């Protein structure tokens, strides 16, 4: 067991990372020891990243202990780069974190300065080299092997590496070494990968006085949605997916997602969708001391032409049903990015004769209503039950002859006498399909439609075939559905 991480008090006592735990305990018996938990660290980092969204939507994780914030175009909102860094450091310090920060034109320079500079620095574009020069080579985010190699040839600081001839370096230590150097100095661009999708449009409001009541949260949403409307109108688009982010004063961040099956722009509709989401979240949202920043993001857009409503009922889609489905999704969905799992399913026939696979539920968000008018319904060629059991249930059957229809059967502890029987309809496995069994000879099923003495109609099947005499194969019977 070794020390993975330690606080300032422990550092002042002369402990360091990687030291054996037994040694440290022997020297300082009063140490507080907490087992390292990488998962929890990651969660904490993610939570801080969430909180940092208040400064910029482009936040990238730099595990295990760093965050990149792309503040291009955001700094002026907080009184410039210095103002932003000061605000961020002060707020995080109040939350109890020891944080270092630096602003630079390249991620590499910012990374190095944060970790190796003595104070908080803001480096201008092109001024990286003199700042980075005194830093050790570890500031360049190189792997351990390259670092050891460079140390062997006597290169210890970034400045030495800048002055060293490039070609032999590249030959000896690979491209990574120079790439990192160029990235830090701005000769090669480096992009950070934001943690969350970058919203197409975003409206936010900062509050002098935090709000906590649901009515206020909805009221703010209405204001934000109204602000969003002009932006959407200008681009001729409507929102397909929206995210409402609530920043609590003490750092917690709540994100509510809703989806719309058709692009929406109307603020009232947007508020209606979020109202269901808020209701579904219920107690999960704890306003605590209130929210001080609220933001409405458009995650996905769709084209929405300016429409002119008809006097009579017209239009391709029925807004009633579309809105209902969206609201159901907002209330029952898991709040993830929409369209993937709509709680409402539309029955869709599949080209398969295996009853379990003959029909699937397609997310209703893909459906368009009203449906095309249809005079005749195509009736299935062979009988299919009105209700199909998800898993066929075993039944005990007495049949007149081994391969004949059932005479009596017992299902769910009740005994039934068969009055009429139709069948069999043999359904074999789909050996040509993707999930065909290895032996290419799936067990066939013989389906019977039977009616008991009372008049209930069932769909029973016998799985397997009777083997040749003496083989002793006993087919099994199952209940698979109920007819009208």
């Amino acid at each position, binding site marked *: 067991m070794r020390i993975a991480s330690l606080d300032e008090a422990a550092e002042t006592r002369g402990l360091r990372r990687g030291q054996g735990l037994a040694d440290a305990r022997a020297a300082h018996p009063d140490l507080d020891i907490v087992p390292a938990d990488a998962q929890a660290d990651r969660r904490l980092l993610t939570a801080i990243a969430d909180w940092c969204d208040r400064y910029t939507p482009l936040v990238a994780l730099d595990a295990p202990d760093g965050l990149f914030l792309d503040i291009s175009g955001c700094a002026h909102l907080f009184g410039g780069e210095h103002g932003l860094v000061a605000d961020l450091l002060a707020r995080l310090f109040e939350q109890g974190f020891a944080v270092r920060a630096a602003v630079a034109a390249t991620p590499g320079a910012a990374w190095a300065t944060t970790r190796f500079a003595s104070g908080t620095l803001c480096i201008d574009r092109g001024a990286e080299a003199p700042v980075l020069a005194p830093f050790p080579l570890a500031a360049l985010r190189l792997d351990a092997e390259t670092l050891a190699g460079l140390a062997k040839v006597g290169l210890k600081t970034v400045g030495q590496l800048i002055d060293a001839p490039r070609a032999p370096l590249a030959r000896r230590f690979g491209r990574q070494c120079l790439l990192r150097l160029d990235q830090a100095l701005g000769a090669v661009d480096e992009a950070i990968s934001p943690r969350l999708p970058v919203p197409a449009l975003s409206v936010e409001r900062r509050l002098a006085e935090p709000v906590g009541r649901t009515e206020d949260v909805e009221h703010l949403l209405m204001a934000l949605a109204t602000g969003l409307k002009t932006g959407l109108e200008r681009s001729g688009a409507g929102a397909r997916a929206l995210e409402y982010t609530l920043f609590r004063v003490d750092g917690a961040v709540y994100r509510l997602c809703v989806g719309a099956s058709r692009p929406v722009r109307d603020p009232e509709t947007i508020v209606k969708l979020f109202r269901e989401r808020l209701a579904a979240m219920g107690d999960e949202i704890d306003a605590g001391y209130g929210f001080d920043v609220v933001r409405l993001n458009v995650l996905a857009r769709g084209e929405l032409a300016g429409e002119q409503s008809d006097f009579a009922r017209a239009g391709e889609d029925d807004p009633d049903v579309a809105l209902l489905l969206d609201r159901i999704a907002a209330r029952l969905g898991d709040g993830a990015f929409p369209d993937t799992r709509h709680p409402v399913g539309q*029955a869709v026939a599949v080209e398969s004769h295996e009853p379990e696979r003959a029909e699937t539920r397609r997310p209703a968000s893909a459906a368009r209503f009203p449906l095309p008018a249809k005079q005749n319904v195509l009736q299935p060629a062979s009988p299919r039950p009105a209700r199909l059991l998800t898993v066929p249930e075993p039944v005990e059957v007495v049949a007149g002859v081994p391969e004949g229809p059932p005479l009596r059967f017992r299902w769910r502890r009740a005994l039934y006498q068969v009055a009429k029987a139709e069948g069999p309809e043999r359904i074999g496995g789909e050996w040509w399909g993707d999930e065909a069994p290895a032996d290419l000879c799936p067990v066939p099923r013989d389906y019977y439609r039977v009616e008991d003495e009372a008049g209930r109609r069932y769909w029973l099947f016998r799985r397997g075939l009777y083997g040749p005499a003496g083989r002793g194969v006993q087919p099994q019977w199952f209940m698979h559905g109920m007819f009208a």
Partner: protein
Amino acid sequence: MASAARATARATLLSLRRQIASIEQTPPALAGEERGWADAQDAERAALLATGAVDFDRELGGGIALASLTEIHARTARDAGLATGFVAALLSLTGAPAFLARDPVLWIGAPGVFAEAGAPHGRGLAALGFAPERLLTVEPKRLVDALWVAEEAARTRGLAATILDMRGNIGGFGLRETQRLNRRAQASGRLVLLLRQSAEAEASAAPLRLVVAPSPSAPLTVLAGTAHARAVPGGIGPPGFAVTIEKNKAGPAGRTHFIHWNSHERHFYTEQARRGGTRPAGTAADGPGGTLVAFPRAGSGSAHPGAELSVSGDRPHRARAPRQGLAAEEAS
């Protein structure tokens, strides 16, 4: 007796008018008399869904009211298939208002229902005449969510019907919830069905409660409508339903009706009416366009005002079936 007969005839006449109106795709009120828009809305709310089984419709006062909550019970879970089929049949009746056969249907399964009694199967419903692509199913994890979805769906005019599929008597569902559903159904004028399996009757705001029980299927016939019609031994024909009117605000309750579903012509009929029709086998052949169930030419015994109605020629059997049922009823 005479006044009752006249009232029945009037109901028949009205339902026929409505059928014609829906065939011609005009709002029923406009087809009937010269009326304004507001009245058309009112008329839609007063619309009835005539099932085609004459006795049954008469006891319901003309049919199942569209703008109200209707309870359909199945005594046991194994009757769920019957109840499901009955609902699917109701939703695909010919002569119903156009929206009922066109718009999507939201089928809400209370938690655990689909696991216990199976989920509605599109192909099986198609066998009854219901277009499976209209079927939207949702199974919320909590009862309160199911009720919320049901209430929201009940007031959505874009849906043909809302079906709340429930099992047993559940704590969170009682008179107040049915009142809310009923109120929303009245406002929207759309069918709201409460499908309950293995539940005891309890206080409810629904004006109509039907209990669907098993009834043997009709014989499966080949060459129906011809002189050579004969039953297939052991064959399962049009499904039978024993429907008991357990609660009825519009008429008498307590009687059990044994009705069958004709999935080709998409209406219910009683065995009595069918027998009345098939008895003179010779005359059945000269009816235009032989079908599974054939009726002789009208004009023998019934002298209702409705008999003089001329109906469009493309659906002669459908129009004649109720009258034949009446005639058979009076003859017996």
